[in-house]
């Protein structure tokens, strides 16, 4: 039976149900147990499952991930948490040099079925070090799967798929989506496959490729532009790695134009990769340049509210991009 819950509840439910279903699953991270997580995502799990399966760790992202990697090699299914994407950097050694390469360097002798939950993204004026969205760093590492759902239904289904995946999955949770969105989520077991992108809105005039929180911003912009006679198709790329080229190419071949929207910075952002793919594989289908509306190339989101606002990727900026591309 489906009922409307928010993303936070959906993730909590996925963890709770999977830990009930599968003894091998356990969670670990800073503040996830006694406190239930700084956003309350893991609330209630310590009471339900005990210290053996809900582990409050020392303040050391490297060993949080390494403990997960080693446990996974023993056949367990750990789900470590990185409290903020801004603090994933100490764990990059383990994620990039160990997790992504373990299967490859051992020719399949070892594998690393971990799911790393990471809270990312701008929201609530959190400033330089509680707002970063750096999923793209990891898309660059073959051997890692990278996902970022935009709604509660996908969040529960993809988290379950991630935990059951035999390879390492980085599961990015955008903090602005924890409570903001509700969708109908089945209370039972289901999965949403890792990989396929999804067409959120059909349209004939151009394709908007987007992900994460920007999915909502893009849909908002598309609705507003529809009133001006421009129909945008919005394709949400839920899985950043591996990229679902088929869905993307099908859409762009249909509309002949592509606008890429992402919150993360412009240079070397995910849009750069998408643009390269389209240029390589859809050149003959394009009637205009591949444009990007993204976060600005600044080191981090500054704290002062007016600077934060100046930084934001909002529907107005997206609409300006749509207009520019529509003119071709």
């Amino acid at each position, binding site marked *: 039976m489906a009922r409307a819950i928010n993303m936070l509840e959906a993730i909590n439910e996925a963890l709770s149900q999977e830990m009930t279903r599968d003894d091998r699953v356990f969670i670990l991270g800073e503040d996830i147990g006694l406190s239930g997580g700084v956003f309350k995502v893991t609330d209630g799990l310590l009471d339900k499952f005990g210290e053996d399966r809900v582990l409050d760790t020392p303040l050391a992202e490297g060993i949080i991930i390494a403990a997960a990697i*080693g446990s996974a090699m023993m056949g367990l299914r750990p789900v470590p948490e990185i409290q903020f994407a801004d603090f994933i950097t100490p764990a990059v*050694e383990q994620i990039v040099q160990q997790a992504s390469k373990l299967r490859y360097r051992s020719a399949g002798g070892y594998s690393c079925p971990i799911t790393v939950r990471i809270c990312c993204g701008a929201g609530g004026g959190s400033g330089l070090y509680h707002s970063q969205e750096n999923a793209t760093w990891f898309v660059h590492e073959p051997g890692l799967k990278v996902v970022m759902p935009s709604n509660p239904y996908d969040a529960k289904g993809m988290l379950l798929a991630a935990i059951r995946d035999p390879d390492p999955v980085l599961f990015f949770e955008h903090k602005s989506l924890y409570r903001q969105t509700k969708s109908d989520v089945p209370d039972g077991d289901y999965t949403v496959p890792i990989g396929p992108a999804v067409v959120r809105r059909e349209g004939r005039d151009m394709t908007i490729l987007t992900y994460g929180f920007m999915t909502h911003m893009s849909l908002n912009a598309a609705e507003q532009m529809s009133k001006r006679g421009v129909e945008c198709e919005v394709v949400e790329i839920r899985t950043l790695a591996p990229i679902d080229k088929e869905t993307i190419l099908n859409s762009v071949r249909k509309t002949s134009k592509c606008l890429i929207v992402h919150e993360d910075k412009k240079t070397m952002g995910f849009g750069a990769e998408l643009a390269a793919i389209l240029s390589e594989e859809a050149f003959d289908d394009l009637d205009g340049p591949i444009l990007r509306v993204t976060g600005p190339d600044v080191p981090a989101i500054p704290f002062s509210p007016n600077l934060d606002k100046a930084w934001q990727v909002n529907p107005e900026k997206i609409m300006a991009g749509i207009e520019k591309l529509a003119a071709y």
Partner: protein
Amino acid sequence: MASKSNRAVMEPETEKAAHSAELLLGLYKMLVKCRMCDEKARILFRQGKYKGNFYSGVGQEATEVGTSYSLREDDWIAPSHRDWTSNIVKGAPLKYCFAQLFAKVTSPDRGRSSPAHMGYPSLHVITPASSIAGQLNVGTGVALGIKKLGQDAVVVAYFGDGATSFGGFHEALNFAGVHKLPVIYVNQNNLWAESVPLRLQTALTNLSDRAKAYGFPGISIDGNDILAVYEAAQTAIARARAGEGPTLLECKTYRWYGHSEIDPAKYRMKEEVEAWKKRDPVAAFEKLLIEKKLLTEAAKKDIATRTTAEIDEAVEFAEQSPYPDASELTDHIWA
């Protein structure tokens, strides 16, 4: 808890009573095998038989043999770049160890990993990355898994003096201390981290002092005294199996050769190298066994001859093995 053992000279009677002839000879044969394999690996590299590099552990054999000789099948080893021979101690057939050097398809990782960075999944030797202290971290994670599954297996993790400066070292040991994980952290302190001497690496003299910071025992021993190493390791392994937690075992030792085969190690004084060569762990044990009449000159020669033949056969297998096909490049990225 420091124990500087000098048993080989001081307590001969106790030794004979404490250890069976079978164990003593087994340790000796394994020392000889590691020594001869390592020297062979060096020769093969210098003959251009394989590319890349080799990180010789000649001089340090007792630190590996003493700690891993009596491990069970389900126990784990987390090696670093200088621990190619730890695969041999764990029971890896020599032919696959040499195939590893040559990066042939018959190596445990089908030629993916660098020559000395060898792991062996079915023997629970973790295929290492080159990242210093990386194996400590992954090995600590394995120990967490062991504890969660209610097993009494242990993890023996090897690393040098340089690794003890790395942040990940501290994270791993701290975590293991909190959770009383079954890890024996074997610090092979050979006084040099590539070309950086110990005095520039740490303010400590005894690296086992670090264990205090993590709430578990640290012991410094003569890493070239095979029985001292063996006995300290047995204590640490028993502790770990009983759920009492980790031990930091600092084995003071020395590598005879450079950091790698392309490093002439000119930064070290000849006198220092010669002094340590006189403390050869293999020769010292040989001398002891001969004194105890557990080994004769004839038996010693026989062991050397047999080991040479075994190695020659293994090298032949490695030389005859094919390289992996180029089409394998993109295999094993995903399940």
